[in-house]
């Protein structure tokens, strides 16, 4: 296996931020400089007309790909990127990546379902970027791909 070399990451200025689930690098790794940035949201999405499950899934896969590829380009370590999506009929889609493949699983009814409303739960834990930068990048990818969906 190839050994990857990564740049040293500056310790988050927030350090041990108890209320935000961001313990210090020393507590996590016994090695300074490796505190993850965390982006974690629930985003309700509504369309004027119904959107098919496969169509919505394709957009979310592109979104995870975009964040994953950005992290790779920046030589950041992906802790994980996980997305759980529910449609209006409670079918669900689950995406997960550790920076390599993207695992896609869904409930049996997801592909055939057409829904006007979705709940997108998105968490990205990435070592390297600043918290604000990660939030900006991921929010941008989510918005771009949701905007690309044409019912």
């Amino acid at each position, binding site marked *: *296996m*190839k*050994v*990857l070399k*990564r740049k040293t990451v500056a310790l988050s200025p927030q350090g*041990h*931020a*108890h*209320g*935000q*689930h*961001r*313990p210090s690098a020393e*507590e*996590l*790794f*016994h*090695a300074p400089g*490796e505190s*993850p940035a*965390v*982006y*974690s*949201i*629930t985003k309700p999405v509504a369309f004027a007309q119904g959107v098919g499950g496969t169509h919505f899934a394709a957009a979310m896969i592109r979104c995870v790909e975009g964040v994953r590829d950005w992290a790779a380009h920046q030589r950041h*370590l*992906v*802790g*994980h990127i*996980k*997305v*759980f999506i*529910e449609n209006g009929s409670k079918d*669900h889609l*689950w995406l*997960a*990546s*550790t920076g*390599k493949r993207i*695992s896609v699983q869904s*409930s049996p009814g997801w592909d055939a379902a057409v829904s006007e409303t979705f709940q997108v*739960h*998105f*968490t990205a*834990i990435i*070592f390297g970027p600043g918290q604000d930068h990660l939030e900006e990048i991921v929010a941008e990818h989510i918005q771009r791909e949701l905007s690309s969906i044409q019912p």
Partner: protein
Amino acid sequence: MKLVIFGGFLGSGKTSLILSLAHHLVNREGSEKPSLVILENEIGEVGIDNKVLQAGGFSVKELFAGCICCTLTADLVTTLNDLHEKIQPKWVIFEPTGLAYPKKIIETVNQYGKGIERIVVIAVVDAERWEELTEITPGLIEGQVSSGDLILINKCDLVDGVALQAIREQVRAMNPRAEILEVSATSGIDTRIWGKVDEGPEA
């Protein structure tokens, strides 16, 4: 009440393996569902794994209060003792965050937990990222592996035989006492592996 703790780094496959174990426990009991509660501690404001497990039909409680390194063990003990007093489940499966050291959790539960007849720690290793993670976070990976009673090298289908053997040897060096098995959660788990959970050490 038997407690199964799944340790392992972010993305190692803990949630998929917990789904498999939970299904096994349900199926083993036939029509009589076992009393099973899954406790989840996740990083971030929004839980994802708890939704995946709930979608699988299981009872899940979230431990979101505080951060993983400070108050979690206190919240965990409070929750475990509450479960013991009110529900008395036969099994409790706990998934800490991928950044947690199981040893700290075990020490606290052993000291303050009530009604726990057995604790089994399953350490999940990500074969695909082993070399990368042991280079970047060696202390955490060793801390997680060394706490396991059973070590599951997951995603073994994604690395070749030579790499897998090297991983096995390094894991063995970190934890000489544990049983080490190679699995692929996406390809299905041999139910005999879950039978070993019943053979764990007494608390």
